[in-house]
């Protein structure tokens, strides 16, 4: 915070003498104009150098050809994009599908919880909030591995689904396979839902908490049923939270590969798995770069359409 303190330190404000006032004011105004830029300098520079520059560089990498031994050169070989898309479109589709379903599931599971914390938790509110946030602070990977135990072949979930004969239905729907839940689409979507649920709950909670409780009373006074109150008052007012939550869930989920790797099989690989293996194992950097950009373009397109339809402008 050195710059901030230095900035605030400045010269001590001696009581200004009447004659010198304009000069002092001008100096102060000049300092004020510069202050935000000085404060921003380090943070913005960091992001420009280590976030924006890599993206630009990645864009140039995606149109390079070559090999690791001979080096890569920009040849405007746009066909990399086409080849990548032709070979990996199922992975793209699967990523968007899985993360879409997981986002919907997060909304379905997260909304009641956020609602409960905002309106019904009473003195338990802080306890529940801690329980929602605490998983953030324990390892993502360890918790995902725990799902391997929960969904294991002789585990509680499989035996429960077997007893109520749901496993036959899910197998028929091709979201599980035979007697297994692990290494199936169901497991991956379950893991994604679990891992990104806090990202849904927190924005929902923030926007629900802002709602004035008197609106509920007013709605009740006007003979609305609780459900009508929810549909016409609560839900529309919580829309900014819904939009923020779905974006915060969908975007990271579509790039995730931890869940697909640990809970899925080779048939459930998502686009993140492909990018990672192209980059770290195959060492085909142009393809990895092209895949990244296709993923970003797809997300950007979906998000744009979604925000247009949801019609909220205040996001952050």
């Amino acid at each position: 915070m050195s710059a901030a303190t230095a900035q605030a330190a400045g010269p001590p404000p001696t009581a200004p003498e009447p004659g010198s006032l304009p000069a002092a004011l001008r100096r102060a105004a000049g300092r004020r104009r510069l202050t935000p830029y000085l404060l921003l300098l380090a943070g913005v520079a960091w992001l420009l150098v280590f976030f924006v520059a890599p993206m630009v560089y990645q864009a140039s990498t995606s149109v390079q050809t070559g090999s690791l031994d001979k080096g890569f050169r920009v040849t405007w070989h746009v066909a990399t994009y086409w080849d990548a898309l032709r070979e990996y479109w199922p992975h793209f589709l699967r990523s968007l599908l899985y993360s879409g379903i997981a986002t919907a599931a997060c909304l379905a599971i997260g909304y009641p919880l956020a609602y409960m914390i905002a309106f019904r938790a009473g003195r338990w509110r802080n306890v529940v909030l801690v329980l929602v946030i605490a998983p953030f602070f324990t390892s993502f990977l360890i918790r995902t591995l725990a799902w391997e135990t929960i969904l294991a072949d002789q585990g509680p979930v499989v035996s429960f689904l077997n007893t109520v004969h749901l496993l036959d239905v899910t197998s028929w729907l091709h979201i599980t396979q035979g007697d297994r839940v692990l290494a199936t689409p169901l497991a991956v979507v379950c893991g994604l839902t679990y891992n990104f649920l806090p990202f849904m709950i927190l924005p929902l909670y923030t926007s629900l908490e802002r709602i004035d409780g008197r609106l509920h009373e007013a709605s009740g006074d006007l003979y609305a049923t609780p459900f009508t109150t929810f549909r016409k008052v609560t839900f529309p007012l919580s829309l900014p939270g819904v939009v923020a939550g779905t974006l915060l869930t969908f975007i990271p989920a579509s790039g995730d590969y931890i869940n697909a790797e640990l809970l899925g099989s080779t048939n459930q690989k998502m686009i993140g798995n492909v990018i990672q293996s192209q980059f770290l194992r195959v060492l085909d950097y142009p393809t990895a770069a092209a895949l990244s950009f296709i993923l970003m373009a797809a997300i950007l397109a979906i998000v744009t359409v979604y925000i247009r339809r949801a019609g909220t402008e205040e996001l952050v």
Partner: protein
Amino acid sequence: MQTRPMRWLRRNVVVLAGVLALGYLVLPNLVVLVFSFNKPKGRFNYTWNTFSTDAWQHPCGVADMCGSLTLSLRLAVYATLGATVLGTMTAFALARYRFRGRAATNMLIFLPMAMPEVVMGASLGTLFLNMRIRFGFWTILIAHIMFCLSFVVVAVKARIMSMDPRLEQAAQDLYATPAQTFLRITLPLAAPGIAAGAMLSFALSFDDYIITSFNAGNTVTFPMFVWGSAQRGTPVQVNVIGTAMFVIAVLLVVAGRLVGGRRRGARS
């Protein structure tokens, strides 16, 4: 006419759904806790065998695990310091000043949070690779500060925006110097936001696998150790660490609330 249990159910359906969702969130943590007391039969700690406190007595009994753990802790401390300092300065500029380029800066802050981690990790990795910078501690640290920064800015900015500017004006009216005003009024008021941002950075940095994997080279952080061990069979000690982290996190949050609560109480 509805029966009483039905009516109760109707009235509390939201609470029930919420409690179920909470159970879903906490369930894996319980599994991690229970299986930290397991003595697995083979290499894989998936099925319950017998109760044992072995892992708790020898938490560092696995080769390389505690080394990766201290590395991750060190990284998280530095990344938190860096991101908090840079992020707080940025947040002050964005929340307190109107200036040219403000909208662009807001966008620049928002983008890293809205970008899939694979994309960020891969592109930073490509840059390092081509600038022939050796992967290791420093490249990981640079990456961690980069992705933690935005979260700090958002947390601190929200706090500053909700602060009453009249408190600072009052300080100035009472002849406080700008330095005094900043140190005794502004900073303490912004502290909860800064603390929240710092805690978030620490958690994000400590826990990150995806971005780290692209920028680590041969350096192994704790999440990378866990990832590597998942194929060979995760040692029980990993569950011990996971449980300890959960307990420490809960204690920290509770302690933070208590301190915050007492402050609020003292003021009123």
